[in-house]
């Protein structure tokens, strides 16, 4: 009996311990240091935070969270505007167009980053309609939804321009999906029109408590114009572009302005007397000059970078990669050149303009010396020995006085000064010259859309509509500011527009997108890509490079439906 009692008591103890914890509670996870979709999309503040996140991702996608090469290739590097600067024999650096195939990593990177923006935009657009969100007003909601729709349309218009018809997804994905199919290119553009139309009604205007790093309504009109051109709806395109051009808040800058308008300097040889330096085009690209608050009325959509400030993104690195390696050159006696702070910095000579961008376009109408965009201020073409220890100190660098041990091809080529900085923050001191520099990575804003491009878009629409006189007028608006010879209606064709884009927007516009939209990528690579011409590289006809290949990764991963590949691959 005792035995039973003791066993019983023991068992009771055991059972007591066994039920003393609340199993359900113990096994339920309550997040402590992260938010969930359930609790973070309930207030306007949550949506504002998501919008800020979307802006940050957009900045990251187009300008990188590191020295991402996708952005430079997008600017036309390794295509018609620039090539590998490393050596004369260097064929490609960041993308290889002649063997383009569905496994190309850059293409996948563009594709995936645009869809990631679409995903985030969808979360805002879908969840904004949720009943639990207490919006202060319809306007408040639509302003955020409008911005999200703008980014969604911006991503889709790039997808349509570059790949044609792509899968359209307008709902937030909440679990795995493998059954996407392609819409037509028209349908994708049409979706963009729908989103952009909404955006043009609701997004903030620049007068509406606008902050740097936000996207104004004018950007939606600008992209809408581009989409309408792609759809062949030219009057609508003209109308959309006109909404920006006629907006009194925007105008081309024609007078010197900003931080460095009274800048004086002794020039690229760093010798002699100081004299006034720069012109209005030069002013457009100086640090501190990009925002409306700083007097710039030409900027429409900028990315926004601030030195040594939390929340600012990865610095832009155009100086480092697009500028020549001039400071590392040696004279014929082996004496190093000096790295200088002012308007040089620390470029490493990896991306070099093609003869098309460096020479050809500037000879148009004999404007070489007239067009301020080709002025000594805006393109440095002569380089000097800057080390006082050199026998050739102060002299221009030539093939005779420079050492041939180093690769002169990489050392001295036209340096577009829109990439250069007047004064660096001095993160690093050069060991030889003791001058400060920032390793070529600068904190300075960049343009995504500038009014000059809107003029060129409207010119394109006019031209395609058959109104070359109006097209010429728009092109001349841009040329006049640059003091270039005006063009006539008879001069206008798509190539002129592309040349003018190269002159005005070198290193700024999404060149690959523009060329693919116009169906001219392959033609322009054949015509202007350095290695293609020198080495006689060939590009098959029939679809190849008319559009980009759908990434194989997507075709493979999408296992429950077929994603058709574009022809030519």
């Amino acid at each position: 009996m005792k035995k039973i009692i003791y066993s019983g008591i023991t068992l009771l103890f055991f059972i007591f311990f066994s039920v003393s914890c609340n199993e359900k509670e113990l096994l339920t996870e309550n997040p402590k240091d992260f938010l969930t979709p359930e609790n973070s999309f309930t207030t306007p503040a949550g949506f504002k935070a998501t919008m800020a996140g979307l802006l940050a991702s957009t900045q990251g996608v187009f300008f990188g969270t590191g020295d991402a090469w996708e952005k430079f290739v997008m600017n036309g590097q390794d295509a018609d505007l620039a090539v590998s600067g490393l050596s004369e024999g260097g064929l490609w650096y960041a993308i290889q167009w002649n063997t383009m195939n569905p496994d190309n990593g850059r293409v996948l990177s563009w594709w995936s980053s645009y869809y990631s923006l679409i995903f985030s935009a969808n979360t805002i657009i879908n969840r904004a309609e949720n009943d639990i969100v207490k919006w202060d007003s319809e306007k408040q909601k639509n302003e955020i939804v409008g911005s999200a729709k703008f980014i969604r349309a911006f991503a889709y218009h790039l997808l349509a321009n570059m790949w044609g018809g792509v899968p359209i997804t307008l709902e937030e994905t909440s679990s795995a999906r493998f059954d996407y199919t392609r819409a037509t290119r028209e349908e994708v553009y049409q979706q963009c029109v729908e989103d952009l139309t909404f955006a043009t009604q609701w997004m903030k205007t620049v007068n509406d408590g606008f902050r740097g790093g936000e996207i104004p309504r004018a950007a939606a009109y600008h992209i809408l114009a581009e989409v309408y051109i792609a759809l062949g709806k030219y009057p609508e395109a003209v109308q959309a572009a006109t909404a920006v051009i006629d907006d009194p808040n925007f105008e081309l800058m024609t007078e010197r302005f900003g931080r460095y308008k009274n800048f004086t300097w002794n020039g690229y040889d760093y010798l002699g007397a100081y004299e006034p330096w720069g012109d209005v085009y030069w002013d457009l690209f100086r640090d501190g000059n990009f925002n409306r608050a700083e007097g710039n009325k030409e900027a429409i959509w900028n990315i926004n970078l601030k030195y040594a400030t939390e929340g600012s993104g990865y610095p832009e690195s155009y100086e480092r990669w697009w500028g020549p390696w001039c400071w590392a050159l040696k004279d014929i006696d082996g004496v190093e050149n000096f790295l200088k702070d002012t308007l040089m910095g620390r470029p490493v000579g990896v991306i070099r303009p093609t003869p098309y961008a460096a020479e050809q376009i500037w000879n148009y109408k004999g404007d070489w010396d007239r067009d301020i965009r080709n002025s000594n201020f805006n393109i440095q073409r002569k380089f000097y020995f800057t080390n006082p220890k050199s026998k050739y100190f102060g002299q221009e660098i030539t093939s005779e006085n420079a050492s041939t041990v180093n690769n002169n091809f990489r050392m001295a080529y036209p340096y577009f000064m829109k990439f250069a900085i007047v004064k660096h923050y001095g993160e690093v001191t050069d060991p030889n010259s003791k001058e400060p520099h920032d390793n070529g990575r600068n904190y300075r804003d960049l343009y995504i859309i500038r009014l000059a491009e809107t003029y060129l878009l409207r010119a394109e629409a006019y031209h395609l509509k058959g109104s070359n006189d109006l097209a010429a007028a728009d092109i001349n608006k841009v040329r006049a500011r640059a003091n270039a010879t005006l063009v006539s209606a008879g001069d206008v064709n798509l190539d002129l527009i592309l040349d003018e884009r190269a002159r005005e927007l070198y290193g700024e516009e999404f060149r690959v997108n523009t060329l693919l939209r116009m169906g001219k990528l392959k033609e322009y690579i054949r015509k202007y890509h350095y290695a293609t011409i020198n080495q006689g590289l060939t590009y098959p006809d029939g679809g190849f490079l008319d559009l980009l290949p759908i990434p194989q990764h997507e075709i493979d991963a999408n296992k429950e439906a077929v994603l058709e590949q574009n022809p030519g691959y």
Partner: protein
Amino acid sequence: MRKSFKKGVLIVILILFAGMNLIYAQQQNSVSGKVTDSKSQPLPGVTVVVKGTMQGTVTNADGIYTISSISENATLVFSFVGMLTQEAEVGNRNTINITLVNDVIGIEEVVAIGYGTSQRQEVTGAVSVADLDELRKAPANNILETVKGAVPGLTVGGTNKAGQVGGMLVRGQNSISAGNAPLIVVDNVIYNGSLGDIANDDIESFTVLKDASAAAVYGARSANGVVIITTKKGKGINGKPEFNANLSYSIINELERREVYDAEGYIKRMLDIRALNGLEANPDNVGDYFVSAIERENYAATPDHKPTVPDPYGLIRQNGFNKKMSFSAANNTEKSAYFISTSVTDEQGVVINDTYKNFTGRINISNDFTDWLTVSINAMYSFRDYSGAEPTTGYGSTVGISPYGKVFNEDGSYVHYPNGTTSYISPFWQIATVNLDQRNNLNAVLRGTIKVPWVEGLTLNSTYSESVRWDETSQFNDTKTQTGEIDKSNGSRSYSRSNNMLFDNVLNYKQLFADKHKVDVTLLYSWEESSYENLFGSAKQFDNDVLLDYKLENGLIQNVNTGGGESGSIGQMARANYTYDQKYGITGTVRRDGFSAFSKNKKWGVFPSAAVIWNISKENFMDNVSVINDLALRVSYGKNGNQSIAPYSTLAKVGTGKYLYDGDASYSITQAITSFATDDLSWEETTGINIGINFAMLDKRLSGSIDVYKSNTVNQLFNLSLPYITGGSSIRANLGDVENKGIDLGLNSINIQKNEFKWTSDFAFSLNRNKVITILGEDNDGDGKEDDLIGSNIFIGKSLEQIYTYNVIGMWQQEDVDNGTIFAGMNPGTYKLEDLPDKNGEYDGKITSTNDRQHIGNSKENFRWSLNNNFVYKDFSLMVYLYSVWGGNDWYLSGVNQPENDSYPYREDVNKVVYDYWALDNTGGTFPRPDSQSKASVKGVKYFDRSFIKLQKVMLGYDATRYVKSTFIKGLNLSVSGDNLFTYAPHWIGLDPETNQGIRDGAVPSLQSFIFTLAIKF
């Protein structure tokens, strides 16, 4: 010293004192006698204790003992290591002579099997026990270094830094992406910390549960095997406390020193590179060739061109040492026992700033309060300090200093660019000003055992354990460092803490019926809660940085990062074991596990297993087989889980960040959905079968075990690629099946046992093969077989460590250019890769990734073995321990030897490790030309076989006890030992094959030590 460290020490000391007064003894009448062995030789040193008291003595050199004041009804207990313990009732005798017989190791051994123990011969699963007494003769930093190689089926990784704790793997890789480390159980409690925190000398036993059945008691966490460690319990000498002190000093050097070009080699390399570039390379004009002004000036400074840095590598190396001291006090009585210990280690590796300090303290106390209640506390504290920043390798490699460079400024500070090129930053500019890395572990296990009165064999064990681990790190880089210069100094401090509570209740019923039927039933209810939190603060842009990381708010840019979380789990387990007459045994186990991190729809998992043992030698028909003493056959089958789903990883998450609107005073917080929920994600499941044999033969002179096993791990946690159209890149899913099979073999042999000489050998051998059975199960290329996942390096039907790449078959030479056979894009001095025929059997004369990659071998070893020989002659003992991992036939290959792919291999002004590169006058070089990166359009990698046999440990010991017998000292041992003494690796080039460090700028040498040890017992 840090405050937390002091606090930890204080806590340990308090705990230590708290246990002292538990011990008591009592006494009363006289008896004497002689103790001999079976050959009538007197046995000195035999412990004779009055049972149930602390009273006792030790036999003298003639085996004689005397005990006074002893009552008639007392019992004497005679014990001696290696002999069976005997008891004798005193009665009215005054003389009691005793003959002790040898105890063959293993026969009465009690083995830890998880939530209980079992007699060695009744264990049904595959369980290996390390022979720590033998192995620990050579001192080692931690238990893993002690058991490395000696436990069949347990792989312990190599180490090459001070205080590093090697990785563990039991029987091959089951999981592709989840962890493969075994579960660790210390003193019956699941242990989530590092084994580096447990003092080696505190460990009593080290057991590995290898098969599904043995490990099944730990259910969802047992798929990778279980390591069970028990720490020492109190044990005294004749009722008096036993004190042990171990002191050791090691001299540490590289197993193999890294070779960097000296002035002569540096110049030769410069000439070679110039020649390859088609430039003049006249040895008489070297002075003109230096690229940088610094080198040129230093070269010209002396007529004989004396190098300014004769030994570049010497600048970053130091002489290593290891000072270790451990001390323990222990005692036991009938009712209580204590074991108190402390140890201190101070180690320094061979690279500057590679330091390690460790302090541990432990107290294990147990007390029988009544007949039926025992309470014990095991408490420990450990402090490990890895502070000190080493010069980083990689970009600013430590080997790059030119023999003609300039390392120091006139004021003694370091030059930023010692070679005069900004491509090479001084390694000293990579060393943080402050680098603190301290890890603390405080752990207490409270255990109550209730033996239920009147119900024989029924016990209730409640174990409550609480551990706290906290780590502190801080870093500061002033402006004299690479990142500090860019950031205007930067610093950070971080603190992280984790708490773990475990409450186990085990109900056990163990009974022998009718002398033959042994029943052992265990029920478990276990409940565990963990939480963690961390705090990280950093800052940069200091105008004044003299306060370093103590005042991060003086930096203009500050960043704070905090986090935390918790998890809970519940385990329910039932195990029943039935043994008939020690002849047949069967064990059945089922465990049900719930874990908070499991996904919403899969909170619980059930893991069953069963095993049988047949002691063949107990059968009548074996009676006449005298050669065989013991023979048992074991078969087991069961299912285990691999929990490996991190807390919160199955939930949809929203991440936050920062975005700065221009014009705003500060950034705005951003948010974005960063992951999808996976509501049905499940743990990985390993189902395995094990067949084993235990045997002893030739009068138990040769004994051992052999196990063969096969297991399949399904529901592999696999990142399934999503179309990027979803907005995500991949999602975790349960897929696939990986098979492991292998053999574990352990042999112990007493080779010679004569009067004063004994030679024993222990041999361990493990062989494991794994194979991917299926992953996605898709056949897109339509060849009727499942497609390989080449991007993830997974090949159906092949091992997980398969190497699929180009095959290097030689080097292109000038002749190939001359006769036109060289492939486009290739140059002389670059690897010649094998061109494979395409589908039509044609060679296309170029190397493409689609057509020319092939299976060239495997990075996994073929087998492992170790052989430990112990010799004892009189007071001398010698241990020689060999350890080997062997490949052969395309196994154990490593592609780490790519000196041509280090940073700037083509730059003559950046120094390199010495390697045999191809040059115009060295066309037979092993490695390609220095500039091969730009001279080969397709680059291959040369693979080398890492097979090695190591003379891992040699220990020569001397027992000097007889010289100190007249003093209070009861034992004195001296030893000299060497660790990692010699490596035979016939196919390897470079540093240690075990740690896979070959010829690379960043290769880290392994440590070799010579250890002097003094062990005192009193």
